[in-house]
Each structure stands twice: as structure tokens, then as C-alpha cells.
């Protein structure tokens, strides 16, 4: 009985969201509003249990690491963001967290630039590796906007566009398959778990 009610609730909300395919309607708006509220409400106890308790409460009250009171007070300054007179104090926890960008400079140069360049500079031993090299270089040239894309240079960057279109097509295909897989999951739920039409 309890499972039937649970399935009915899930089916009602699933159909409410699918009803948007017809047009925007009160059922969809209700489900959308509920999803926002429940998603946020779901995060609160999780953050409390997994972040607040181990990194704020336990160090201060159980381990007596009173120095953690300072970041806790610093964090509480976030709440002054909406104050007209004291809003500027919320900049302190923001800049404290933002300073980690200093670490992202060497990290991004290493992982996104140097490692990729090293992989692109392997000896060309076949048609595929030649195509990968040509594709990488022509796409990079396409994103160099200091020179007008005209003449031979324009033709070269045009090759980059074709490589990008194939890459976007592959990503598009993957995304469609992932979404269709979710759609199959929902239809299986409606026809199987809820209505019992398929086993």
C-alpha cells in the first residue's frame, strides 16, 4: 500500500513535468516550484551533517580548537550581504574563498595546456595522428582573432570549423543518448512500476 502511494506521487509529479510538452500549465508550475524547494531543502541537512558538524561544531565544541571560531565568524559575515550598511563585510569570506584561484593558475596551465600540448606533439605515425594534429592546430588558429580570417588563413580556419562541427556533433549525439536513456527510465517507471503494464 505504502509503495503504491509512493509510486502514485512519483507518477503524478513525472506526468506534471511531462505536461509541459503540451504547454505551460499549473501542474508543471507546481512541480517546478516544488522541485526548487525540495532540492534546496534536501541540501540543508546534508551540508549540516557533512560540513557544519565535522568542520565547525566538532573542532570548536568537542576538540576545543577555538581558533576555528574566527573562520566561523568570518563565514557568518556572508549573511550581511543583503544589508545596506554592512553588506561590504560579506566581501571578506568571499575573497578568502576566491583566493584559491592562485592555485588554479599553475594547475590549469599544467592540466589543460601543457598536458594537452604534449599529447598533441607526439610523432605523426599515421593518417589519424596527422588528422588530430591538423584539427587541433586549425581550431586554435580559428580562435586567434587578431588576424582577419581571409585568404589562405581563412581557408585554414575553415578546416578548424569543420573539425569543431564534428566534435560538437559527437557531443550532441552523446547528450541526446543520455537524455533518451533518462526518458526510457521514466517511461519504464510509468508503465512498469506504476501501471504494471511491463515487467
Amino acid at each position: 500500500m505504502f509503495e503504491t502511494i509512493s509510486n502514485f506521487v512519483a507518477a503524478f509529479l513525472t506526468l506534471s513535468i511531462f505536461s509541459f510538452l503540451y504547454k505551460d500549465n499549473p501542474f508543471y508550475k507546481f512541480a517546478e516550484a516544488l522541485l526548487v524547494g525540495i532540492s534546496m531543502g534536501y541540501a540543508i541537512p546534508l551540508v549540516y551533517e557533512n560540513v557544519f558538524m565535522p568542520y565547525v561544531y566538532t573542532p570548536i565544541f568537542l576538540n576545543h580548537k577555538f581558533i576555528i571560531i574566527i573562520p566561523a565568524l568570518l563565514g557568518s559575515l556572508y549573511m550581511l550581504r543583503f544589508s545596506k550598511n554592512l553588506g561590504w563585510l560579506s566581501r571578506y569570506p568571499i575573497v578568502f574563498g576566491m583566493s584559491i584561484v592562485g592555485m588554479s593558475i599553475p594547475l590549469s596551465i599544467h592540466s589543460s595546456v601543457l598536458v594537452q600540448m604534449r599529447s598533441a606533439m607526439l610523432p605523426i605515425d599515421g593518417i589519424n595522428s596527422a588528422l588530430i594534429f591538423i584539427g587541433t592546430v586549425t581550431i586554435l588558429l580559428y580562435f586567434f582573432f587578431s588576424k582577419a580570417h581571409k585568404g589562405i588563413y581563412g581557408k585554414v580556419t575553415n578546416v578548424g570549423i569543420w573539425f569543431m562541427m564534428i566534435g560538437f556533433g559527437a557531443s550532441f549525439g552523446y547528450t541526446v543518448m543520455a537524455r533518451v536513456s533518462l526518458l526510457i527510465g521514466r517511461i519504464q517507471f510509468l508503465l512498469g512500476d506504476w501501471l504494471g503494464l511491463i515487467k
Partner: protein
Amino acid sequence: MKRQIPLIIIITLGFMFVAHSFIPHKISVDFFDWFQDWAKAISPFAVSLGIMSLFMVHGTKIKRKVPNWQYSVVTLAGLVFTAFAGFVWGTQSGTPYMWLFENVQMPMSATMFALLAFYIASAAYKAFRARSAEATVLLVAAIIVMLGQVPLGAMISKWIPETSTWILNVPNLAAKRAIMIGVGLGITATSLKILLGIERTYLGGGD
């Protein structure tokens, strides 16, 4: 000074982190451990900012009785009830909190993403109608990759899964690699702009 001191903090700490990446000395490691402890202690309070923002936006809608204000009541009731269920009955399996997750949150978010299947199909149709050579290449690559993932592709022709693998391993790899290099350079440039105090939008408006 309300803007200058935060800027001095981010520039000082930021460059210390740049140095930390190149100097794995004990002092540097201790400094990073200290930062991590403090950052973790600060982070849960950022959630409170999100909750406050949501309450302010929807509270204002309810107070002013704007059109469709009733849905704001649903949002806030959903938030309060789910959080209440988590705090009172716990977050373990079998609790009302997990029931809400399994029968309300998860089906709805999965359906939201499933809904995109229809809109992606509609976008593909519009792209095909554009009849440009580039759009056709994109769609042909997408169709081959899609068919290559399912048994139907192999049933049509053994070349489809092979071509799909080739597309993913050759032209797609070249595109992803070039984009990755661009993204890396973009991250580096943006990070430098923040560290040098050129990019300041994160400080917000006011004095």
C-alpha cells in the same frame, strides 16, 4: 578601504597559493592545510546565504501577491518541510527525508532532464532546416555517434560502430583538445585578472 582591504587579502593569499604550487616546503604545506581548515569552516555559511536569498525572493512575491505567488508558497513549503524532515528524522535510508528524495526530488529532476530529449530533437530539426554544410556535418556526426551506441547501428551496418569510434577518437579528440587548451588559457587569464585586481565584479557594488 572597504574594497581595498579585501583586494589586498586576495592578492596576498592568491600569490601565496601560486608560490605553494612551486615550493612544496613544509611551511607552504602547513599554510595550505590551515587554509583548507578555515575554508571548510566558512563554506557551510554560504548555504545560509542561498537560503536567505530564496526566502527573500519568494517572500517578496508572496507579500506583494504578484501573479503566480502561490507557487512561491509551494517552493518555501517544500524547502522547510524537507529540511525539517532531515533534521527531525535523520537522513538515513527509510526516513521521510529519503522518501522525499526518492519519490519527489529524484523522479522530478530525472523527468526534467528527460524533457530535454524532446527539445534537443526539436533543435536538431531546426539545425537541419538551416541547410548549411556545417549544420549537416554536425547532424551526420551526431546520428552516426548515436547509432554507434545502440545495437540498431550494428544491425544496419558494421561500419556504423566503427565510424562512430573513429569520429570519437580522431576529429572529436582534435576538437576537444583544442577547446581544452583554450579553456586552460581562459582560466589562467581570468585567474590572473582576479589576482591582479583587474577583475573585481565578485566584490559586488557599493563602496
